[in-house]
């Protein structure tokens, strides 16, 4: 039931997320795009679990938990960076340069 449209929406959401990460420079927006990608994956997992069993739905819970934890750590890092550099623009952050 509606598997094709569900997977289509999922793919569109995921692509928006990827493009957002690639094109936006603000760290917080970037974070939101990552959340978008995670939820796109969640959507396809739920959709597929209709036919492939309950495993996909269980996995969604894990993804949500990890996403929440990641958001907490990620925002903490962003706040720390902002305190240090007074910006969250990724173009200005190149401490990892080799």
């Amino acid at each position, binding site marked *: 039931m509606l598997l094709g449209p569900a997977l289509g929406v999922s793919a569109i959401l995921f692509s928006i997320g*990827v493009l957002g*990460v*690639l094109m936006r*420079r603000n760290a917080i927006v970037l974070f939101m795009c990552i959340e978008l990608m995670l939820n796109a994956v969640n959507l396809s997992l739920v959709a597929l679990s209709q036919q492939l069993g309950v495993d996909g739905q269980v996995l969604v819970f894990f993804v949500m938990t990890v996403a929440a934890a990641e958001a907490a750590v990620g925002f903490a890092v962003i706040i720390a960076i902002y305190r240090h550099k007074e910006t969250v623009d*990724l*173009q200005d*952050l*190149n*401490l*990892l*340069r*080799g």
Partner: protein
Amino acid sequence: MPTSVQMVWLIVLLPFLGFLVNGWMSFFRPEAKRAVGVVGVGVVALAFVGTLFVVAGLAGHPHDAPFIVPLWQWMPVGDLVIDIEFQVDQLSAVMLMVVTGVGSLIHIFSIGYMREDRSYPRYFAYLNLFVFFMLVLVLGASYPVLFIGWEGVGLCSYLLIGFWYTEEANASAGKKAFIMNRIGDFGLLIAMFMLFREVGSLSFAEVFHAAPEVFGTNTAAISLITLFLFIGCVGKSAQIPLYTWLPDAMAGPTPVSALIHAATMVTAGVYLVARSNVLFAMAPSVSLLVALVGAVTALFAATIALKQWDIKKVLAYSTVSQLGYMFVGVGVGAYAAGVFHLVTHAFFKALLFMGAGSVIHAMHHAYHHTHNEADPQDMRNMGGLKKYMPITAALMWTATLAIAGVPGFSGFFSKDQILAMAFARGHDGGLFYLVWAFGAIAALLTAFYMTRLMLYTFHGPNRTGDRESEHLHEAPWIMTGPLVVLAVLSVVGGVINLPHILPGAGWLEHWLEPVLHGSVEFLGEIHISAGLEWGLIGVATLIAAAGILGAWLLLKPEALQDVAGSPEEKGIQRVLYNKYYIDELYDRIIVQPIVWLSNKVLWRVVDVFVIDGVGVNGAAGISKFFGWIGTRFQTGRATAYFVMFVIGAVWLLSLTLGG
């Protein structure tokens, strides 16, 4: 197999235990000289006693020998199986007697000679180790086991030549001996490889048994093998062109010169040829080469000995010359005569060296007490020593008469036999007459330079100095005792192999028959008529008399001069004094080019440029370059990483879906 022969490994083990004990002492009880002396001499003397039992056991079974005493398997590699096993037969028994018998006497002498040396235990440790390796050499039942001993005695020779290593000259003399021997050892190794390829075995029994079928007489293979074997002998036994290390080896303590560089180690080459007599008998051209090299060396070294002033240098060149005689013997196919001269030479040359040691000992003390810096080994500083050292003088005269070939003494019989055999082979080719002539002239020179040595040392007025001569004393009994034994042997040693014209002749020849019968099949017996033998004996007697009397008349003991009074040498004398400039020649054509090559090419080009530059730094540079490329992707911008990640993910996805 007699029990005593089965226990032959005990004879070998004893000196090794002595080495371990004395080696331990040299580190932890260096002051316990008495214990060191007892152990050092004791193990060799016990080995001699054991040897007597072995010889007695062997004499009871003359036709069962060789006895092979297996110990353990050393290296089984495919077809090549090398066992550690000893071979007891008539030839190794003769060598055993010489090594342990003369060795014991020299060990006893060393107690007195080295008494005041700080490194007394180290000295005896090395000496015991040498005897151990020498016994392995003469008892080994295959070429590899012989080679262990061969290398081991080379090592001990090196250690003992450089025994007083704090003087650089001594250390370099040791190095010279070691390196020149290495050249010879390379020949021996090649010979072993070729033997294994041709015969498939390296044990004496199998090689000598198979050789007549595998090789034809005078084929290329057997000639090459024996030639390479002989190169090994040339190095070890100090023949032309590898003889220059032996005179330098006199830097070691004098008993070492007596044991290693006169009586035993340097005769190992003669032993090897006699041991391989079957192979050499099948290669007549190489045998002739052996005889020629021996004859030329005998004459060449004897001429150098004429003008040396250092008493030990005279004896060193004399040893080179006498070794030449032994090679003449084994070269003309008279293997028993060669071994005979080996034995008698061990007696009188050990006696001469140790007598010279007593003289040097006395001279050293005299100069030491009076703080004189003069050279205690220079014969021009001696003279008239028979007044102070009558026993040593008498003993050394005995040995001199023996080496000069005065009838009745041991050296006369052995040298005469070699020359007679060379003459008898004359009908096989004129070169044998040349060998004989060289040997005869060398005999004349031998009588001359030995008399010269005796006159300068013991006769005429004393030139040591008035103050110094008060401190000249006869050596203690522990040093003269062994010399008395050797003097007796030098006189009567000839009876073991009297010439055919005398009753009871050829005992040693008969004893060695089981070892040598293989070569007799190829060479046939060398016949010599009684008349010719008497004639040659007459010639030899005349030569000895001419040499001794000639030296006496020419040198006039009363008119001998000390260093200051000696006129400068000119012309041929100067060439002889400088040993024909052979050392300088070798330095110019071999040592210096190698040093140049090492310095300019091997170091600056090969090592610094090729290995360090292209090799090591080149490999590092390539890694660094790729590393640098890697760093270019490390921008530090998270977005850039993400771009790469997405590209990679899309690529992988396309591979998975597309495939």
